[in-house]
């Protein structure tokens, strides 16, 4: 007989515990609604925890600690995230592993701290100058929070990159019951450092992964150079040399290559019975799940694609979507941000967007506004 362990918890707790088990050891942050619970859980669980005076300091402290060999985490919402953007670009360019949890709320600017949204998708797509993609993982369930957080640590270390875990107020701060015996303990992600005897070139990449070996600045065997300026494989500033341009492009290539081989989604598929698809992610996917069930009761079969490796978009995701003749995107925003990343600014006739601003998108609205 299996022993169930039914408890009441929220996504915030699950994400924090998963990150800690996966090997994240440091939390730096500034509290901001609706991420405050994550900050509190981190202070209870992470050995190294520091309140920072603001979000620019947060990301700079995180980058420094990452350079010294730690795996830091922070959680924020748009007003803090906006302050972090230049520093995340720096960590991206320096190739430093770290995790940033973005719990979306209604904007713009201060907006409404206690209202949820999925309004930062377009921002995430473009946040690295040059349009280079940064990994964004988006859980839509407790189980997702568990294994996607582990995956975030895996990606951060393996790809030497900041990784974003995307949530929103309605999932992060809503309690629900769950049998935690279903959450298998997470083995910490192992880290490998450069062990060669040759002089260490900080940005010389491995052919298979396109990722350079990491060495912390605490090591005394090899000189380490980290720089946010355009650079060559030695980490020396370059204007726009061929080697430096290849290095910059490699920053997106390494991520795209990984995602093409490993990305997460759920396709609730009624076995080729329908030409209609709903596409969703995060909290609005929960509304879409219910819409799919309600439509089925009415005799209307639709498939549901819940995207979990939200960005960059794997070719397989684009292929799945384009197999369908009627596509409905369901998002908690006003302007169909994910729909427009996939299909462009003017959605084709067979693609519809249903959204909501200032409230959760409901199954009823999806059913009334979608094309099935």
């Amino acid at each position: 007989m299996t022993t169930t362990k039914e408890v009441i918890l929220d996504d915030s707790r699950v994400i924090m515990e998963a990150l800690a088990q996966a090997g994240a050891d440091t939390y730096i942050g500034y509290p901001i609604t609706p991420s405050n619970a994550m900050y509190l859980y981190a202070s209870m669980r992470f050995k190294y925890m520091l309140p920072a005076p603001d979000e620019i300091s947060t990301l700079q402290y995180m980058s420094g600690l990452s350079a010294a060999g730690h795996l830091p985490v922070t959680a924020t919402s748009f007003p803090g995230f906006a302050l972090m953007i230049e520093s995340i670009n720096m960590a991206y360019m320096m190739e430093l592993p770290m995790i940033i949890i973005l719990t979306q709320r209604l904007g713009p600017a201060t907006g409404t701290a206690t209202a949820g949204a999925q309004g930062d998708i377009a921002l995430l797509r473009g946040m690295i100058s040059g349009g280079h993609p940064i990994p964004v993982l988006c859980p839509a369930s407790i189980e997702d929070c568990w294994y996607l957080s582990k995956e975030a640590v895996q990606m951060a270390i393996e790809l030497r990159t900041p990784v974003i875990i995307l949530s929103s107020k309605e999932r992060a701060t809503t309690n629900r019951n769950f049998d935690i015996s279903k959450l298998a303990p997470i083995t910490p992600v192992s880290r490998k450092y450069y062990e060669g005897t040759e002089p260490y070139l900080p940005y010389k990449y491995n052919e298979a992964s396109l990722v350079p070996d990491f060495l912390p600045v605490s090591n005394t065997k090899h000189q380490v150079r980290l720089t946010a300026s355009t650079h060559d494989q030695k980490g020396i500033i370059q204007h726009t040399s061929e080697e430096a341009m290849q290095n910059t492009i490699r920053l997106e290539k390494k991520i795209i290559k990984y995602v093409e081989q490993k990305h997460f989604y759920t396709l609730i598929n009624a076995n080729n019975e329908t030409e209609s698809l709903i596409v969703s992610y995060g909290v609005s996917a929960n509304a879409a799940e219910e819409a799919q069930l309600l439509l089925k009761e009415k005799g209307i079969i639709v498939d549901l694609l819940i995207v979990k490796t939200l960005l960059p978009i794997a070719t397989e995701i684009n292929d799945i979507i384009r197999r369908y003749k009627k596509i409905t995107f369901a998002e908690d925003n006003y302007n169909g941000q994910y729909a427009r990343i996939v299909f462009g600014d003017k959605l084709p006739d067979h693609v519809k967007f249903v959204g909501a601003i200032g409230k959760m998108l409901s199954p009823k609205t999806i059913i009334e506004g979608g094309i099935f």
Partner: protein
Amino acid sequence: METKVLNTNNLPFCKGCGHHLIAQNTAKAIESLGLNILDVVFVTDIGCHGIIDKVLNTHTVHGLHGRSVALAAGISMGLTSNKKVIVFIGDGGATIGLQHIMEAARLNVNVTVIVHNNFLYGMTGGQLSGLTPKGFNTVITPNGSPYNEHDICSLTYTAGANYVSRVIGIGDFSETIKEALQTPGFSLIEVMEICPSYGVKYNPKRKLQEIVEAANKPVKTWKNNRQPFEFPQRSVLSNLFDKTPVIEKLDLPKVLNKQIQVVLSGSAGEGVQLAATILCKAAVKHGYNITQKGTYPVTVGVGFSNAEVNISPKEIHYHGLSDPEYLIVTSIDGYDYSKKLISSLKENAVLMLDKSLSIPETKAKVMHVDFRSKGAKNAQLAALFCFAATTNIILPETLEGILAEMNMLEKFPLNEIKTELEILKN
């Protein structure tokens, strides 16, 4: 093993620039201490001074403009205290990153900052910074800067740095740098210099010593004796789930065959959120799935308090509000907050309203009960018992068991409420 800090004598600065001397003096200080070159991390800011990375044999980190002190602070927090983390920053970076310098001094991180103060932004054409002395000529203030300037030494000393010193960037000041490097905690040295390209150009008749004196910036050293930064030793949980008690399920038949919503609405400080938590625990004990969401103003001690609970025999997907079957209102704050909801309740809904509140226009069935009779703080729980007694979705015994588990039975007037409920039933 490399022992020299600089890999060349040919530094990449304009002829006559004080940056040469800062680099050479810093190298001399490090070498005189016999430090392992790879125990040293240079963090360089943006500016002419920051192009020095490629001539350094130490670790080098070149980040964002003005953020070098915060980056260095993070690096030093991750290293043992025998390592040396040195920041090269200009007066421009020190202006942008003034807060980072203050914070680094407050925390007293093990970092030595050397400010290359040539009173202007060299790299971008000689514009003024926050450290440009009033009266100094720059490209945009050719008749003298009209603005006051910071005294970075005074600020950093007051913020708590263990060692602060101002020197004129002429000759050998390596002893000052050496002393800073040997001082645990945060140290800052402001080196005064004139930019040969822009500073001299716009202030041709002035000598460095005179500029510094006219600006009232004394050449001296200030010290504090505070504990250097260390991550505090903290005891942490080995698992966050240790704080989520396992709920033992009762083996009872379920009354509900579909999802319902219960909204609890009252005043801050009257246990609305607690009642919602207890309701959810009870529902889980009875084998249901739940979601629970709380809404209240940021001033948590005053105003309304609202909770939305979903209870379902099946998996809950969408947890948003949609035609709740039960609305419990126990105070005027809750009443005012729920006005719109009350008027939109459907006919199959039940409004459990405290007797002190007047019955509003609503399609729902109204139960007008004196929940507040046993005290404002017990009103929501009293309403839960009423809910249990009239719906059987959860049982009053289950609520009683949970209150006992939470050591709340002593203060709760259970028997009186039970008696009132019996009266209600009949």
